[in-house]
């Protein structure tokens, strides 16, 4: 059984503010979902497959382009700045970090 405190900790890790009452609901709902998906733990593929890692289990191959031909500097700056909630003199403005 997943506890309310565990939910609060997971929410913290995921940077989501969750009220106490919602954490309670979420604990019940997530517990039910985990109760269902747990059936995957009864899955016993053959010996060879059980040794492969999760990453190798995926047959998706990533194809990266060569790191060449960069955009012309500033070509997208204005459009992207326009969508930022806080800017100053062409920079993204954030709260003090240190």
């Amino acid at each position: 059984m997943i506890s309310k405190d565990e939910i609060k900790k997971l929410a913290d890790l995921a940077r989501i503010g969750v009220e106490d009452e919602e954490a309670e609901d979420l604990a019940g709902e997530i517990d039910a979902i985990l109760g269902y998906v747990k059936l995957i733990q009864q899955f016993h593929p053959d010996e060879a497959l059980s040794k492969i890692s999760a990453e190798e289990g995926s047959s998706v191959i990533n194809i990266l382009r060569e790191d060449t031909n960069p955009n012309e500097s500033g070509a997208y700056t204005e459009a992207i700045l326009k969508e930022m909630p806080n800017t100053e003199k062409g920079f993204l403005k954030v709260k003090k970090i240190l």
Partner: protein
Amino acid sequence: MMDLKNLTISKARKLLDSKEISAIELAEYYLKNIEAKNEELNVYLEVYDDVRNQAEAAQKIIDAGNLKALTGIPLAIKDNILIKGRKVSAASKILENYRATYTATAVQKILDQGGVFLGRTNMDEFAMGGSTENSAFGVTKNPHDPERVAGGSSGGSAAAVAANMALGALGTDTGGSVREPAAFCGVVGLKPTYGAVSRYGLTAMGSSLDCIGPITKTVDDAEIIFNIIKGRDEMDSTSISPPAPSYTKRGSEKTKIGVPYHILEQEGISKEVKENFDESIKKLKDLNFEIVDIKLPNIDKSLAVYYIVMPAEVSSNMARYDGIKYGLSVDGENLLDVYKKTRGEGFGKEVRRRIILGTYVLSSGYYDAYYGNAMRARKVLGEEFANAFKEVDAILTPTISAPAWKMGEKTTPLEEYLADIFTVTANIVGCPAISLPSGLTSNNLPLGVQLMAPHMSENILFEIGKKFLGE
């Protein structure tokens, strides 16, 4: 004016090309329908204010004789596919006022032909759901019965086509989000092979599962749109170039359709769905297809695999919405507080739930027990499908286990997740799948059957689908 109720993209093409109708008249017909029905059905979140200009531009292309398959065809677009300069919210408060800074490749290919976009359609927030009940902007109602949901997450796109509020639409499918609403609304929905259509400009949910696909009235129309939007795109490293169709008929043999009868024995499949499925099988036999009983021993694990892999990918994809770079920003005491407030208030309940679930299954103590096992099962399922396709040309199942539910009927998340039981497997193995309307229940609610085919063999789906619908 002629009756356009039963218009399809291919029929509209003929009318436009022969100048029996102008692109402007055609667009106005759909705008009029939208005006009459949108308040009740909540299909569009925004109807673009320049539709007439788009149609005029299309008409100029037609008049100049440079027309292509989609020139002047009025389409709807799901609210998670980007068009530069236009609002795109993924039906979320966190992106409510966001304007796209670039255009999705699939959209650009349609725009290049002079296709007309009418507006952006409602969906479950970030495509997470099967009913649009998770939209931050209200539920889309089913045109066949406004007390019921249109399905989801591409519910607005499916309802738009069913209610003649668009001639065709783009949706997205991560676990059934094109096929399930298509079945609920009595239209055709295609989930292409993973990678067949570029995901560039699609708001990411589960990146190893997401596909853009068409929702249309006919299989022919779905094929028309698919042929335009498909193709390798250098902006999406997982996109693939279409090889020559891998499908070759086995000599003079009949086309074989495999039916995993064993999966119909599980609980929760309505009697009417089973009866309708039997009728669909009979229809296919009458059409001279050979039906073969096949076994997919681990298919019962599909839904569990999906509800582990998908939230895991969601939890990482949603990290970009932080109140800093774009979208909603809620002020707080410090940077951490800004993150937590923005994400706590900006995301709806289901999105928060899936992020937290994904964070759990990826956390160090549980990683292998959940994600590791799920990825191994995913590989085994892929092999099972590959083996099955050595024996049969396509696999048939129902699309949905029951017709569209009433708004508010599903009270727990798990209950709603179980509705995806037939659709998630195609996303897990990456194969193409299509939902075809297969008749009505005694309450006149649409039902659908689903065909799956080997990777890059959409042509099999089109061939069987056209025969099934008598096209």
